[in-house]
């Protein structure tokens, strides 16, 4: 009995009646509306960020510090925020990528039984953690104990968020490595750790790179975690122990200022950030598509 009839509805009338046709047309219209609703916001965002953002970009934007209240328009920039974003995300990557990969290796290669279940559950839970919580926790601990807002506090908060991301992405890629590869190597007497290090991971290689790029992408787009930990800085800062600005933080602060000078810097920051994030995402995608083609 066809599932259509078995669904408990009364059988469809024979023939394509008018009402059936109309309902179907309305439905198709609804589907098209859905497509429009999905695309319009993207187009709006892209247009405004590009139009207002490019209006703010000049050499000063990348080389100068933020303007003071008496400075003219187009004379200031976000050089300190660019460096700050780089610093904070870089340290977060250094912390979370090795840890994330190691956790993924554990879950994929060695993890059986209770500990693995708990670890996997933790990774999924942390993945669902709102970023403000990560910032809040680090602010209540590290920032309070050291009496200082700092770049490394920001990196720590980011690491909490990025670690499970790297783990999840890496684990998925490791799982896709064919089991025969492992078994063949083990049968040949290669020790387990060597199998993982020299065979499994390299095979997963570009997939892991994709995962790392996505984690970096997320880290660069972070604001809430940085807000409570790194505070922000109107000067250039390269010391990890001091308050630092990031592009996201500056966009957040300046968007809410009434001065046009600062608002346009916010748009400039937005287009810089979006370009970077998109380049990373697209590269990650290309790498992963190439990979799938190779493995297919």
């Amino acid at each position, binding site marked *: 009995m*066809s*599932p*259509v009839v078995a*669904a408990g*509805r009364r059988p*469809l009338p024979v023939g394509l009646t008018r009402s*059936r*046709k109309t*309902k*179907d047309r309305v439905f*198709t219209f609804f*589907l098209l509306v*859905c*497509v429009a*609703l*999905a*695309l319009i916001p993207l187009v709006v*965002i892209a247009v*405004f*960020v590009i139009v207002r953002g490019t209006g703010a970009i000049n050499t000063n934007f990348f080389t100068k510090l933020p303007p003071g209240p008496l400075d003219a328009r187009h004379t200031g920039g976000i050089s300190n925020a660019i460096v700050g974003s780089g610093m904070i995300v870089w340290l977060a990557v250094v912390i979370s990528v090795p840890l994330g990969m190691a*956790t993924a*290796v*554990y879950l994929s290669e*060695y*993890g059986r039984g209770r500990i693995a279940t708990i670890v996997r559950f*933790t990774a999924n839970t*942390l*993945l669902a*953690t*709102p970023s*403000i919580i990560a910032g*809040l*926790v680090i*602010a*209540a*601990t590290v920032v309070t104990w050291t009496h200082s807002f700092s770049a490394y506090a920001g990196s720590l908060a980011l690491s*909490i968020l990025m670690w*499970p991301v790297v*783990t*999840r*992405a890496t684990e998925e890629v490791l799982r896709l490595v064919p089991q025969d590869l492992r078994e063949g190597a083990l049968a040949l007497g290669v020790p387990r750790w060597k199998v993982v*290090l020299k065979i499994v991971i390299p095979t997963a290689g570009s997939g892991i790179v994709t*995962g790392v790029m996505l*984690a970096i992408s997320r880290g660069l*787009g972070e*604001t*809430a975690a940085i807000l*409570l930990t790194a505070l922000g800085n109107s000067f250039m800062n390269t010391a990890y122990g001091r308050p630092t600005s990031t592009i996201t933080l500056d*966009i*957040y602060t300046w*968007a*809410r200022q009434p001065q046009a000078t600062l608002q346009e810097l916010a*748009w400039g920051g*937005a287009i810089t950030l979006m370009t970077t*994030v*998109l380049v990373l*995402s697209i590269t*990650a*995608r290309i790498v*992963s598509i190439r990979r799938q083609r190779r493995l297919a």
Partner: protein
Amino acid sequence: MVGVTVTTGILLVGVLGVVLAVLATGGASTFSKFGLGFLTSTRWDPPHQEFGALPFVFGTLVTSFVALALSVPVAVGLAVLLNEPISMRITGPLATFIDVLAAIPSVVFGLVGLFVIAPWLEQHVEPVLHTVVGWIPVVGSLFPVLARNEQGRIVGAGGDYFVAGVVLAIMILPIVTALSREVVATVPRELREGAKALGATRYEMVRLAVLPYSAQGIAGAAFLGLGRALGETIAVSMVIGGGSSLGASLFAPGQSIASAIASQFNGATNPLQRSSLLALGVILVALSFGLAALSKWFVGRGMRRMDVSSADPVDPGPTQQVTAEAA
């Protein structure tokens, strides 16, 4: 090797433990002082040491539900469309565009929301909504009339629950769509094609074959989106208007839990206020984790029903979920 990797796994568990411990111990003094009253009181008054979470819980729930109401139907529509045997030249780019939407940082959503979306909604959409549904007895009071100035322009509040809900809807659309798409993809082809072979229209096939079977999975996708919407901080704080009181309608300004923490923590002067903000964090975390668990359970049930065996219920790939979570 085992030793090293196990250690990192345990370290991860330790991190989660620290997160929960810090929130719990920090919020303890608030919960012990106000008890459950913290959740029901609407008075947030730092100088008088009165703290009630209800305005923020309300703000979070209202904006998230608006976001769900708007994005789930669209996500389901997209999921259905993306699973139709239409040429890849359409579905490919469409899927890519949705992915791009997922990659946009939260602060950029806030920026565009503040300068473009909020004014447009306040001037053009909210009055229309009032005209259309404002007369309905109970529900209509959520869509009140908006004050106009002499020139007839709406006097905006600089953001409100509705605007925040709309912005959130756009932000969670990619993730709900991605998961719904995977759920709908597991409807066996025989079912779909069988329906078509019997002469069902696309609408009938979806209504009778696809939706009943993916309903639970889609619910799971919705819960996942809800969990994301709850925790969203930056974009929401830029378009929700601000203030510590319970908004009287959808067009009133307010705060969500996350945006309240973000705007108050750095300036929290007294220990009880600090503790209350951490207590808010406890509530937020409880809601987020609870919803993530619910989501997994529903998606798992949806999958199992389809007889698709998988030890781990399907989650959207790294591209979707991880880039979508930057807030």
